[in-house]
């Protein structure tokens, strides 16, 4: 990874940064996982725990920012080291956002579980969350192994996430049109789905940052957008079944 510096404390500091990023990543993954579990299993207790846990991530981001600034001031880093430090600041910001999105899903649990929704909706959300979490896990694994050649695969998943999100969007709209009583929970679920889709986007951002840290180049820009929800219009009346 990093080459050895004459001042070993410098190495220690850089290592500490990446260790903190990994710990934040682990926390963010766990929060999203638990928020989805709380939603699918209708568990407000678990949702409360997720909401409380968000403080850990906020604290982590502040600490990484402070440390990074101190390192820049003290060591005047160059090249890889500088990229490593700036990258850590960016990644911790992305992870903190992932935590916020997870917390937002957890906050909606109470509103959604009031009227029990069809299980197929939760399956859709679960499938979406599995994709987003896999993407996050793969990205953080690449951060650990620095094998950037795997990043292409990670970005491909973003298309799948967008496709599932588009499909869920359509399904939720249909439910709302079927019965106005569905509108409250379905709107909340729509936001949950949007949050999860955003988590995927943050994972993609992290992937790009890692690519930059390791290679020093920006990742080639080829991001096809699969999110077509901006074009979805359902007919005002449902076709007779």
């Amino acid at each position, binding site marked *: 990874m990093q080459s050895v510096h004459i001042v070993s404390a410098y190495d220690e500091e850089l290592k500490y940064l990446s260790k903190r990023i990994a710990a934040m990543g*682990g926390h963010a993954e766990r929060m999203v996982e638990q928020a989805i579990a709380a939603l699918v299993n209708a568990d407000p207790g678990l949702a409360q725990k997720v909401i409380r846990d968000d403080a850990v991530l906020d604290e982590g981001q502040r600490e990484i920012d402070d440390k990074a600034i101190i390192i820049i001031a003290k060591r005047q880093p160059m090249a890889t080291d500088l990229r490593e430090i700036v990258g850590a600041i960016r990644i911790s910001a992305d992870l903190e956002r992932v935590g916020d999105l997870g917390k937002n899903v957890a906050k909606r649990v109470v509103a959604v579980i009031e009227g029990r929704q069809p299980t197929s909706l939760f399956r859709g959300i679960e499938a979406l969350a599995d994709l987003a979490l896999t993407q996050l896990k793969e990205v953080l694994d690449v951060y650990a192994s620095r094998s950037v050649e795997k990043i292409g695969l990670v970005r491909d998943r973003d298309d799948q996430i967008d496709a599932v999100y588009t499909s*869920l969007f359509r399904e939720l709209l249909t439910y709302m049109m079927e019965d106005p009583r569905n509108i409250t929970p379905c709107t909340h679920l729509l936001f949950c789905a949007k949050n999860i889709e955003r988590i995927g986007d943050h994972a993609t951002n992290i992937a790009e940052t890692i690519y930059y840290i390791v290679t020093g180049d920006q990742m080639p820009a080829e991001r096809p957008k699969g999110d077509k929800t901006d074009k979805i219009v359902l007919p005002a009346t449902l076709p007779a079944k």
Partner: protein
Amino acid sequence: MADMGGTEQRSTAQLVATRLWNSRWLLAAGIVAVLTVYGFADMTGYVVLLACAVLLFAAAMLPAGVARQSAEDAAAIEAGGLQQLSGEYLAAAVADPLIIFDRTATIVHANAAAFAAFGGIAPGMSLSLKFRAPEMQALLDSILSGAAASDVVDYTEKLPVERAYRVSASSVGHGTDLYVLVFKDQSEARRIDRMRADFIANASHELRTPLASISGFIETLRGPARNDPAAREQFLQIMQNQTGRMARLIDDLLSLSRLEMKPYLKPGTEVDLCQTLDSVIDSLGPLARENGVAIERDFAEGPLNVPGDRDELFQVFENLLENACKYGQSGGRVVVTISHSDDGPEPGIDVTIRDFGPGIPEEHIPRITERFYRVDVENSRTQKGTGLGLSIVKHILTRHNARLSIKSEVGKGAAFTVHLPAH
């Protein structure tokens, strides 16, 4: 006893030989001296022989220093039996994943089981970057800070396949600055619990519909239709269909649960895709004929082997081909293609099953592998579908590290491509 006596004798002989060998230079010098004296002085041969015998005897008798030396050698060899044994061999002999790391949580060594369980680990990598879960971070912290000499936590990985471990960490020896993590796989016990819960949830939800219809018909048969033979025959037929559906549903749920139960795939077994697909096509021949569908083959040349489990891959292709025959019936033909795909990021083999039926609307494609997700509920019911076929396919492929991609255009058919990585 005789054996022991034999051993003793042999070792005595060995000891004498060793001593003679150890004092060979002194001995040679002594004999040369005796011979020199013999050359100059006027002595008889007997005296010379006697002198040589005395010399040999003295050498063979225990000279104290040499004996201590050889005793120390023996002790060193004995202790070396464990101390000099390579830690690598020892780690390799452990069946559970085992990782040795140093003070900075950097991986020093990981055994083969660890590589198989957590792909993408390598010596020199930081352990706390790979195992990011909060409980693992706490475990590493407490061991490395010296707060505890050994510690145990439960650690669960949810993706890509759910796995649960009991992880124990402890320091190796005294003052080596090395630590060891051992993972004990608890997935099976955990899965059995979950399987029960999942099975009941899924079964109760999906079995309710056919059950309600059966009980409705029984009521009718006992009441209004009691004396109507034609209606009775019709109702019994419907009831039979419904019970058949319930049986299929239970079969599928069970095979899905069984898949979820099994731990990750055993490495080392290879599957011949040509042969597997041939037997799948043979077994579905009757169904294809019944539906008026012709199955065409287009297999690439050369060996088409991939690592995997034959029975599971058989089920994947069986489910896909069955779907193609049922839902792509109107196209009249199904094409099965095996081809090499070497240009992607992961070289491997692609198997494509293409039908020419009505196709799948775009908005359903990302979700058709979800449990009980049906594109067209009515059509699925008439084709005796359970809504679990593709879910099983996806599950097996995840375990094989393989990918399923679906391309379809409404009105032109659908193509299901399974990409199996070569390694």
